[in-house]
């Protein structure tokens, strides 16, 4: 059992089908960008590129944590440089005043606007617990080299 960092395979197809929108999009239900959320997963979970939608299997639980996680700030639209398109959330993802006693090591970013909560990406880090504290996930520099999500 392990989590694996990945740009979810289904999300690649979903991008092609216009099911994700970090910035203004074509007419769907609305032209506004979609809302994204970030959910944490236990070290015993198996989140990887095969994730298709958000679900609670293996998700952390504890005081102050609401199933589904927290909102992801998408203030900066996707950009391109050379042949690479990239996107990075425009603010840190913060879980404030939580107690997560069981070790976790992954975060799933998913489309909270979509009816089925389409999975976008999985990011892993060293095993952590939080006790009456705050978990802060800070984003890398948003460019074609280090941007959190890239299609090249």
């Amino acid at each position, binding site marked *: 059992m392990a989590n694996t*960092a990945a740009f979810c395979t289904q999300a690649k197809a979903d991008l092609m089908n216009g099911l994700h929108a970090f910035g203004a999009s074509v007419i769907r239900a609305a032209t506004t960008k979609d809302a994204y959320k970030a959910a944490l997963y236990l070290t015993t979970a198996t989140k990887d590129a095969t994730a298709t939608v958000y679900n609670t299997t293996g998700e952390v639980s504890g005081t102050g944590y609401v199933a589904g996680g927290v909102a992801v700030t998408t203030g900066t639209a996707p950009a391109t440089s050379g042949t690479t398109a*990239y996107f990075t959330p425009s603010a840190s993802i913060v879980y404030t005043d939580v107690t997560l006693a069981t070790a976790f090591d992954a975060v799933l970013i998913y489309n909270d606007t979509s009816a089925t909560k389409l999975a976008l990406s999985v990011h*892993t*880090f*060293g095993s*952590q617990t939080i*006790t009456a504290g705050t978990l802060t996930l*800070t984003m890398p520099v948003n460019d074609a080299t*280090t941007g959190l999500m890239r299609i*090249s």
Partner: protein
Amino acid sequence: MITTTKGLMDEALLDKKTGSVDNDNESTTWVEYWLEGELVHRSAHVTLKRPVTAFGETASLGD
């Protein structure tokens, strides 16, 4: 004052422990506060380093 499992407490009354890890995947720091051998606060700050990348490819037509 910091949040603990026992409510807000004066940091000066607690034992503080910190740690960090820095590798290709992340740069992480954490801080713990202990009261008489009991962990009462732990926070972590993870900076993600490794992007997830998809490689777009197109097939040749007519091959």
